């Protein structure tokens, strides 16, 4: 087999530069400590690594449980074509979140402690146990999807396939718990979070919006793999995911807005502060723009329309999680926090690594090919024709 020649493209050079910066930052963080490598302080103890790598990262990987639930529990077979890529992304996402956490934890080598010395009154404990066990479930789901091509693994893979529905239901249960407990983390700081984002219902908001983010992220992944490798899921399927995302976001928006009304917080929306601006930007990205696009039939027939809506939803989701973890907390903190270049380099490196893994996954595991399920192909084709 001849090795394909490695070409230096613009994005590859950018990726390499980011990874080099990430490596330098990693060295500084582990040798000189968090104080040297980050702009964190006693007054602002959680920064970009928690807000982006962990809190946003777990949400972006929510496609795994959302799509498997749609396909296997609700038996909507035409979405089967996106199960493989979303399960891979989810699995990869959770592994990367667990890895990224090592950068942020002071005693990273004791990361397993919550599993053994757990304090069950802590939302963080629940989060740790759920993320660990869900990563295990995803590993099994992914194994049953991707390892079937190895002959000598047929038997265990066959067994996993026979209990696949159990894995799916377990996955949805555990995801419900930990997607919501990311919000629960902030329920205990009522006087520290900006009123626009603080709510005792944060766990419920976080769960619903994670489902929306999972759908949006599936669309984005499909776009990226089309750009990069020419593989993609059928457009009508993706368009429906965007519509689903819009319905979830609108439902969330109404519930959240009602919350603002009954707790007399509407004034904060028009006080012209930095926080109010961030709130409107967040809502524009993950509610208003996708909604406008989704209700224009013409736009939803084009790749550009569908992907713009999906991208906007995902960006809005990111804005929300960063707003809760950083903007809203900044409001009460005594110091201004701006991430250091090391923090940004490490976070960006994780994004680059996930792109690389996803690209190899698409290539190596044939993620957008459906070879083993004939009856579904016909359904898919009819869906394409209908669209």
């Amino acid at each position: 087999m001849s090795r394909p020649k490695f070409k230096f493209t613009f994005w590859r050079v950018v990726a390499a530069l980011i990874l080099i910066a990430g490596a330098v930052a990693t060295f500084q963080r582990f040798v000189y400590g968090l104080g040297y490598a980050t702009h964190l302080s006693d007054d602002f103890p959680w920064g970009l690594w928690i807000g982006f790598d962990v809190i946003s990262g777990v949400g972006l990987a929510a496609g795994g449980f959302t799509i498997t639930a749609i396909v296997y529990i609700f038996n909507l077979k035409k979405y089967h074509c996106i199960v493989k890529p979303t399960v891979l992304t989810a699995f990869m996402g959770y592994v990367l979140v667990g890895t990224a956490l090592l950068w942020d934890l002071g005693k990273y080598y004791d990361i397993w402690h919550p599993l053994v010395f757990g304090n069950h009154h802590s939302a963080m404990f629940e989060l740790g146990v759920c993320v660990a066990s869900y990563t295990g479930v995803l590993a099994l789901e992914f194994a049953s999807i991707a390892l079937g091509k190895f002959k000598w693994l047929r038997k265990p893979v066959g067994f996993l396939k026979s209990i696949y529905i159990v894995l799916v239901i377990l996955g949805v249960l555990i995801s419900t718990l930990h997607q919501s407990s990311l919000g629960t983390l902030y329920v205990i700081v009522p006087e520290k979070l900006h009123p626009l984002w603080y709510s005792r219902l944060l766990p419920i908001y976080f769960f619903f919006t994670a489902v929306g983010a999972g759908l949006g992220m599936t669309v984005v992944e499909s776009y990226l793999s089309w750009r990069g490798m020419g593989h993609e899921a059928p457009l009508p399927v993706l368009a429906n995911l965007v519509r689903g995302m819009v319905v979830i976001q609108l439902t969330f928006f109404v519930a959240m807005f009602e919350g603002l009304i009954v707790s007399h917080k509407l004034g904060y929306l028009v006080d012209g502060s930095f926080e109010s601006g961030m709130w409107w930007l967040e809502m524009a990205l993950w509610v208003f723009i996708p909604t406008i696009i989704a209700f224009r039939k013409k736009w939803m027939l084009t790749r550009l329309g569908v992907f713009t809506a999906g991208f906007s939803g995902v960006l809005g989701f990111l804005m929300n999680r960063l707003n809760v973890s950083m903007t809203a907390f900044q409001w009460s903190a005594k110091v201004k926090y701006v991430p250091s270049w090391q923090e940004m380099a490490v976070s960006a490196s994780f994004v680059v690594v996930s792109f690389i893994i996803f690209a190899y996954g698409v290539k190596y595991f044939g993620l957008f090919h459906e070879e083993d399920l004939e009856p579904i192909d016909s359904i898919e084709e009819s869906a394409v024709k209908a669209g």
Partner: protein
Amino acid sequence: MPKAMLVDITECVGCGVCSEACKKEQKLPGDVGKKRDYANYTVLRQEGDDVYVRELCMHCTDPTCASVCPVSALHKTPEGPVVYDFDLCIGCRYCMMACPFGVPKYEWQKPIPKIRKCIMCYDTRIKKGLPTACSQACQEEGGGATYFGERDELLAEAHKRIKENPDTYDNHIYGEHEVGGTNVLFLAPKDKPFKALQFNTKLPEEALPELTWQVLNKIPVIVPVWATFLTGMWWLNNRKEEVEENEGSKKIRDEKLEGGDNE
């Protein structure tokens, strides 16, 4: 009975022997600082000309830091102090995020950092029945503003002081009810009440861990319900297919549909 400290701000002269005694007792590096950090468990904050406020861990009755810690590295002892176990700690800093008084501090400059906070001299003094280093120094060398004793006795003393000298004291004992009560109590002067001294006077009387617990205690309720629903939906949605595959029933359905159309 839980031990506690009462700080009568009207009696504090700002000499700072409390901070010095703390440094010595806890073997903290450097000189006494102006801000609480990893090397300063207790400091004095000057408010106006001659009012000094001690800052230290409040040792809550139901501590937020202990409830959020995923590994119980922080915990409340029966004697009153909230103490820390470095061997359990994973360095996640959730305690720092959650503490309503901003007490836990971090050794940011160290590769393997500890959480640092006042532990009410638990190992070296409370366990042996001795008063805390700061309160002893204050009584023997300082202005005598920090008292050590049983919580209920100190509370009674504080109430007595307010009742006997209503013109001297702000009519409030900070720490009696804040976030479920604390084991460090404050009395403030009438002309400079707690709000003016930058105490957080908006804290609820309910202990904050209750907020999280109200969410977490729903989990055992939600899981069986959600599991039943999901399994049921799976059964229902996959059953449709079985029914459709059954030719006989399909035929019957088709006939029925045709019949319906004719009508």
